[in-house]
């Protein structure tokens, strides 16, 4: 049973393409997160699913129903907005029940559903208040409650936690995960925060410039980013990159070097590559470790000692800046040269088009 299906969905404002042929299949009960930098089209895509933006091309299927021309109220969706969008002149009770009232639900049924949602979200004591009398977290709860009572096929969340302070955001994140588990409903969640994406998602969709960059489980995106964009976007701190030249090729690996690197063997799919090609080598800061002698040497620019780990900013010979996150505490002096090594299996090679060359 399909929860949601997008088939080469497009959106353009005149000449400007904001969503450029997105294909996506979401199974029932999945938690999908759209992530990407601001302006990448993730919110637009969500609003197209909601029916708040027209679809310029392609097909949108919700629960096996073609929804391109269907009114939002008939799509079986509910949405939680970034600014909560609670109706200021209504009590929490009326806010949550507004959709049911419009649908002509009998008063007693409505009451039961509202109280049920309030119980799930532990906000029974707030029902008679107006939104202005609530804290940010409470408002968020009401907004979610308003979505729950509709018993939608798909929940849509548009950056719902971005207006909360850091501590509350962590709490609400956990509650959302629990809610998803309890309700078992399909959820689509837009965020620019990759921690939210990594912790909540069954499946992450990375968008950039209106194009899907990669779809996959969080850990897959971290371990095997499909291209330079995803590699740079997912993971914090950001992956280190270096431009290197291919020295020699083997069956399932290649040897690269540059001004900063001694010849290093990295496993990779070599199809179409040849000696002398320029490729990009990517190494995550956590994959680097100190060594007596290593593949590269960096001069210490800045040291941040956190106790359990040490963040070291380095300048390589070519002038490139790299970051290493070393386990445990290290006493390093600024200006000191540090030799570093990494496991070749943890490094990634990106070809001239920016595509990753993993072994199958």
């Amino acid at each position: 049973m399909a929860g949601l299906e997008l088939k080469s969905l497009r959106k353009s404002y005149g000449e400007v393409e904001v969503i450029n042929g997105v294909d996506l299949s979401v199974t029932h009960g999945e938690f999908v997160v759209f992530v990407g930098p601001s302006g990448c089209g993730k919110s637009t895509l969500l609003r197209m699913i909601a029916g708040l933006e027209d679809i310029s091309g392609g097909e949108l299927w919700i629960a096996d129903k073609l929804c391109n021309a269907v009114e939002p109220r008939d799509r079986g969706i509910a949405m939680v907005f970034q600014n909560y969008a609670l109706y200021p002149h209504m009590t929490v009770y009326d806010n949550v029940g507004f959709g049911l009232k419009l649908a002509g639900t009998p008063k007693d049924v409505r009451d039961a559903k509202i109280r049920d949602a309030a119980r799930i979200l532990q906000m029974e004591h707030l029902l008679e208040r107006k939104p202005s009398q609530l804290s940010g977290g409470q408002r968020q709860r009401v907004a979610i409650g308003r979505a729950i009572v509709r018993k939608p096929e798909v929940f849509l969340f548009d950056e719902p936690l971005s207006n909360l302070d850091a501590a509350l955001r962590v709490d609400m994140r956990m509650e959302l995960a629990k809610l998803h588990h309890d309700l078992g409903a399909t959820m689509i969640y837009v965020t620019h925060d990759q921690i939210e994406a990594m912790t909540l998602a069954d499946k992450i969709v990375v968008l950039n410039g209106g194009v899907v960059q990669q779809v996959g489980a969080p850990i897959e995106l971290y371990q095997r980013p499909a291209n330079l964009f995803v590699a740079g976007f997912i993971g914090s701190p950001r992956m280190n990159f270096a431009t290197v030249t291919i020295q020699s090729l083997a069956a399932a690996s290649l040897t690269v070097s540059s001004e900063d690197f001694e010849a290093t063997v990295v496993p990779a799919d070599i199809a179409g590559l040849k000696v002398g090609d320029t490729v990009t080598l990517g190494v995550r800061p956590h994959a680097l470790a100190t060594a007596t002698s290593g593949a590269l040497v960096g001069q210490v620019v800045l040291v941040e000692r956190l106790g359990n780990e040490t963040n070291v900013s380095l300048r390589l010979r070519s002038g490139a800046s790299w970051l290493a996150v070393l386990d445990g505490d290290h006493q390093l002096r600024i200006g000191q040269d540090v030799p570093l090594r990494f496991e070749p299996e943890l490094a990634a090679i990106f070809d001239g088009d920016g595509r990753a060359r993993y072994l199958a």
Partner: protein
Amino acid sequence: MVAITDSGSDEGVTAAPRSMRRSPYPGWFFLPAAIIYGVLFLVPTFASLYFSLTRWTLFNSTFIGLDNFAQFLREPFLIKGLVNTVFYAAITSGLKVVLGLLLAVLLTSQIAARGYLRSVVFFPVLVSTVGVGITFTVLMHPTNGMINEGLALLGVKGPGWLTNPNLALFSVALVDVWKGVGLATVIYIAGIVAIPKDYYEAARIDGATRFQNFLYVTLPLCRPATVTVVTLSFIGGLRTFDLIWAMTRGGPGFASDTVASVIYKQYQAGFYGLSTAGNVVLFILIAVLVVPLTMLLNRKEGHE
């Protein structure tokens, strides 16, 4: 009726079903207002362009070209009305700007009884213009009027405010300012209150005196208020009718006639074409004077 939201041009490359959702902001919401406004304001306005070129009895009209307008520029009492209108608008808006700004500065300072003063200055705005006109006609009575009796106490012989042809229009303008300065004042107060305190504090640290504060902070920063006051009172001044009608009926003679009172007089006399031409003249006057005025005021703002 428009039912599709504007999503720009749609090339429709993929053969997907075009979205036919209704816009949540339906065009028919304009309809009631558009009908009333269109029929009762726009249609007469456009019709006036034609009827101003006719000799008109409401039942039939004879096209006479620009004769009505020629008459407006030929007859001395009509020209007088034209000149009076501009004079009246200029003097009332000028006084309202100056007095309104001064009162607003006074009423935003640390003066006692601020609330009382603001109310007293503003209340005349809400009172019937005709009532004010009649009251001041009595107060300005040349011999028994309170104003001249008050002046007599000071040993001054007051003029015939409304009976002296050279003074009548000016006297009406003063009453207009008396009634309207409260509006200018509250507009200026809103403008001044909106100026962030930081500017005054910065100026004080720079060693500005109170007067310099006014000149270099208050005055430039409440320019939007000035634009509002000038345009509102200038347009109001050009269109003014009820106060003049209540106080002088355009007299003595034609000394205080304005275009608006001429329109009414010609209407009463049955010269409908001429009356309508007066409307068009007033319209042109407003367009010619107010549009450049607002552009000037807004452009200066851009310079800073």
